[in-house]
């Protein structure tokens, strides 16, 4: 019975089915296929034996990680860095988009947009190179701080500044690029709404609160949920380029730990277990975020 329905539907929407095929193939080949490799988290992987033949050892690798002296620290660092990233990094492009939306001078608007996009296209290695020399004792940032009677310090060697530098440089790099989607949504808001609000006596601020923000709220929430889903998957590349033993205290996160243990120490199984743990946490957070959003607003992923 059901099969018949599917057949009928297929006949009707042949083109659509064919169009979706590559997408499904992509997910199967590149996303679901490699997942079986996660098996080695529960095995003592040896390349000579291969994934299937390596001996099972259960949860040993997980227990080893939980008992590790650095477990709480890398977990805390990962969570804090992610939460602060969202706290400061997420609203930034929204604010930029709102500001740009009210700029009437076309030329000025375009140049601001171009300038804020640009860093997105610079290689991370170059960005960190710049950042490192700015943060030196005799670097640009210290030159500036000295004007306010702050003592010169090697900034990238102070654990307390790492998060600030990480997040600030992230915002600088991504703010323009991320604001594009909000600008697009903003341009869809009906102008009549603004006029009506104006006639009702709403000033610019009130218009923003009652017309603009509700107009883009669903976009904001969807993006926020997606962002939370990636909460713990901080790119390790940037941290590895930035950190040094002097600031491990705040900069060592799960993914950098996995990198040091797995790829540099050949502990493949162990680092896969830690990575898997990271993914599970991510997955859980995503579900919670979605639940909360469904409860308090009409928007949710599923």
């Amino acid at each position, binding site marked *: 019975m059901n099969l018949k329905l599917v057949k009928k539907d297929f006949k009707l929407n042949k083109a659509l089915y064919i169009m979706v095929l590559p997408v499904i193939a992509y997910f199967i080949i590149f996303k*679901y*296929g490699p*997942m*079986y490799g*996660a*098996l080695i*988290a*529960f095995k003592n*992987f*040896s*390349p*000579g*034996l*291969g*994934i*299937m*033949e390596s001996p099972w050892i259960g*949860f040993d690798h*997980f227990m*080893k990680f*939980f008992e*590790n*002296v*650095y477990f709480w620290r890398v977990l805390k660092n990962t969570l804090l860095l992610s939460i602060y990233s969202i706290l400061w990094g997420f609203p930034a492009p929204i604010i930029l988009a709102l500001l740009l939306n009210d700029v009437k001078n076309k030329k000025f608007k375009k140049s601001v947009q171009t300038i804020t996009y640009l860093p997105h296209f610079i290689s991370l290695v170059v960005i960190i190179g710049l950042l*490192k*020399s700015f*943060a*030196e*004792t*005799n670097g640009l940032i210290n030159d500036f701080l000295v004007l306010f009677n702050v003592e*010169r*310090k*090697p900034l*990238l*060697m102070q654990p307390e500044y790492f998060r600030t530098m990480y997040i600030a440089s992230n915002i600088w790099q991504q703010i323009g690029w991320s604001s594009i989607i909000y600008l697009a949504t903003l341009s869809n808001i009906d102008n009549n709404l603004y006029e009506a609000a104006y006639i009702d006596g709403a000033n610019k601020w009130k218009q923003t609160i009652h017309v603009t923000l509700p107009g883009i709220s669903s976009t904001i929430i969807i993006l926020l949920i997606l962002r939370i889903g990636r909460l713990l998957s901080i790119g390790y590349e940037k941290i590895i380029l930035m950190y*040094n*033993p*002097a600031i*491990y*205290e705040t900069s*060592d996160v799960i993914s950098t730990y996995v990198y*040091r*243990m*797995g*790829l*540099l*120490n*050949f*502990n*493949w199984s*162990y680092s896969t277990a830690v990575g*898997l*743990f990271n*993914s*599970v*946490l991510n*997955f*859980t957070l995503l579900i919670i975020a979605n639940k909360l959003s469904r409860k308090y607003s009409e928007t949710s992923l599923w």
Partner: protein
Amino acid sequence: MISNYKKIVSILLVTLLLASFAFTACGKNNRNDTGNDTKQNRGNESTLPNNSSEETFSYPVEGNKKLTYWVGLNGQVAQLATNLADTPFAKALEEKTGVSVKYQHPAADQAAEAFSLLVASGEYPDIVEYDLIRNYQGGPEKAIMDGFIIELNDKLKSFAPNLTRYYEENPLARKMVMTDSGKFYNFPFIRGGDPLMVYFGPIVRKDWLDDLSMAEPETMDEWYNMLTAFKEEKGASAPLSFQEWMLGNGSAFMGAYGVARDFYLGRDGKVKFGQIEPGYKEFLVEFSKWYREGLLDADLFTVNGNQVAAKITGGDTGASLGYQASGLGNLLRAMEDDPGYDLAGVKYPVLNKGETPMFSQKDIPVRGGGSAYITTDCKDVEAAMRFLDYGYTEEGHMLFNFGIEGTSYDMIDGYPTYTELIMNNPDYSPAIISKQYIRASYSGPFVQDVRYFEQYGYTFEQQRSANANWGVSDIDKYRLPPVTPSTEESQEVATIMGEINTYTGEMFAKYLLGQESIDNFDKYVKNIKNMGIDRVIEIKEAALRRYNNR
């Protein structure tokens, strides 16, 4: 505590769910069931015939053999060639051996990850050149057991007669390359003379010393006075600057207090870990004083090589640690136009006048780096071995060390002399152009010749005296020989040392920057003991006994 447990249990349950889900997605990769057997057979079959051909064999190898060869492309080779095969060296090697080789190179600076992924992939080229001792957990013995590389014992005599002869003449090299259970597995990079093993040490601004009428510093106190003078009289903003990890290269400064940064043999003949010894505390006290007083570079943990070089040439820094060629040599070359500028390599610092330094950078004749291995996927083991053995023949020795006669060297009075093309090239420094013709200026499967170093290593007179000064030490007595723990032991060591290295690295920074009081040193030692350092030392002791019994 209980709530933590609950959390962990629930997390594990989800993980299990995910994993069982992932299970259903698998299906391929059964090839390993049968793959293993055939691999082993492949290794053995080629040993039986051909034994008789030993006497009559001569290069080139017959039959248009083709091999694949995985090796990191040296950064300076890469400046003129995107693949090793494009260099005149590789072309000459192919012509002489009759074996055509396809080189595979990992992306620059990612060799470690690329190698790790190569091993995990299960599909190998015929030959791999990399440092297995340092970068393969469990070392060569494990690599053989894992089915990554093959053991060469029964084939060495027949297919690598030249390397075998070298071993017979140099029993120490032989002892260092074999594993504890007596397995041979590589075509090693061998340094053929003492000066070749010394190439790193302290460097100071000689002209500043002369200006201040100071002698080259020997003791820690003299170093302190010199650096203070550099700061006050010469206006150096970072009198002593180097990249922090370089302290591990010869344990400079801490060596004065009788400790090395890593493992070493103490005066009592026992294995020691330097960073928990009392001497290390004394070093920390002194060094953090230097930092506090601005004698050490404030950016010690973040500076890179270029920044240090800029500081040394720019007058911000008057003392450093560096390599003989890429450090001292390059700096002197950069400042050639300034006749007043002069650098000198000085002895490793000691505590009291007249002492001999306990530690310094001095390599052992055979390291893992530059060694070539034959993998289990190699179908023609004889061709691969013949190809690699060429580096140890007389003809191959000349090619690897001096290149092509008439092009890169001429025989003058029986001494292979590099031509102007190498030593005085108008476009490229010797470091860059030489690597197109020879491998002596980096590494590879051959015996490095002292005569290479006499010409190449001493472009400047200062390099010759630096080499002599840096070589003064008792390191041969206190160095831990290249021991190889067993597989399980290595895993244990790696897990424990992973934690300890993170901790000691971090604490070194904290002590130095004054974020942590050195009065807490006992607690620091206790923490490291809790992490299991005694177990690691025990493992190293046992491995040392096995090494001595080889």
